[in-house]
């Protein structure tokens, strides 16, 4: 009979490279996408009534080595919290937090978190008089 020649087996183009590209795109977007899962710390909240300062001076300072000072006297956290509480006339009295010169924001945030963890929520931030 006629030599029909070899029958051509049609091969479907492989899907493997396309899947590779899809995986690459997936991994790229997984790495490049940022979901903004930030946490925040409230540093200034408007109060409906202008809060007046009552009672004894409650000045807490923090320096760049994360030491806390109450009214100029250095204290450990365990001693400082009760001391401040004693100076407060009401549980939500304003406590003034002032970083010393050359203190980083990290130290300030740490001090604020420590105070908040111990129940001192109303913190007023003031700058050092030598600040720019």
């Amino acid at each position, binding site marked *: 009979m006629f030599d029909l020649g070899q029958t051509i087996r049609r091969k479907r183009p492989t899907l493997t490279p396309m899947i590779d590209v*899809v995986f690459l795109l997936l991994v790229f977007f997984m790495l490049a996408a*940022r979901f903004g899962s930030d946490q925040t710390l409230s540093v200034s909240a408007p109060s409906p009534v202008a809060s007046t300062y009552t009672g004894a001076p409650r000045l807490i300072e923090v320096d760049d080595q994360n030491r806390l000072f109450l009214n100029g006297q250095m204290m450990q956290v365990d001693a400082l919290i009760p001391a401040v509480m004693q100076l407060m006339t009401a549980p939500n009295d304003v406590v003034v937090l002032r970083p010393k010169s050359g203190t980083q*924001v*990290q130290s300030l945030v740490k001090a604020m978190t420590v105070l908040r963890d111990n129940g001192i929520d109303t913190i007023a931030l003031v700058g050092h008089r030598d600040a720019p």
Partner: protein
Amino acid sequence: MINVVFLLLIFFLMTAQMTPPSPVQITPPSGEGTAHTQDAPRVYIDQSGEVYFTTAQGADAIAAVVSSQFEILDIATDQAVDANVLIARLQQLNPTGQTRIELIIAPPRGLAE
């Protein structure tokens, strides 16, 4: 499996552009804060204390923020910025005291806290 991969890809494509890139490279201070949604306008403060807001920087950025009179404002700052500079900027950005300002904090990495 390929369908699942496509679904994942489309998901990440849709959510990838949600956070606009920050104009400056900063390392936020680490600490425990409260979770916060992304909707509030964000101000960036870099290591030198310069303020960035959308495309403006410096005094223009501060003027833009003050004139917008936002209710809530996020501040993303580097952890090495001088705290007194930050407080000065807070007072510049919030002269009326009517804006609620939130400081962006990164959760502490690692197991120890």
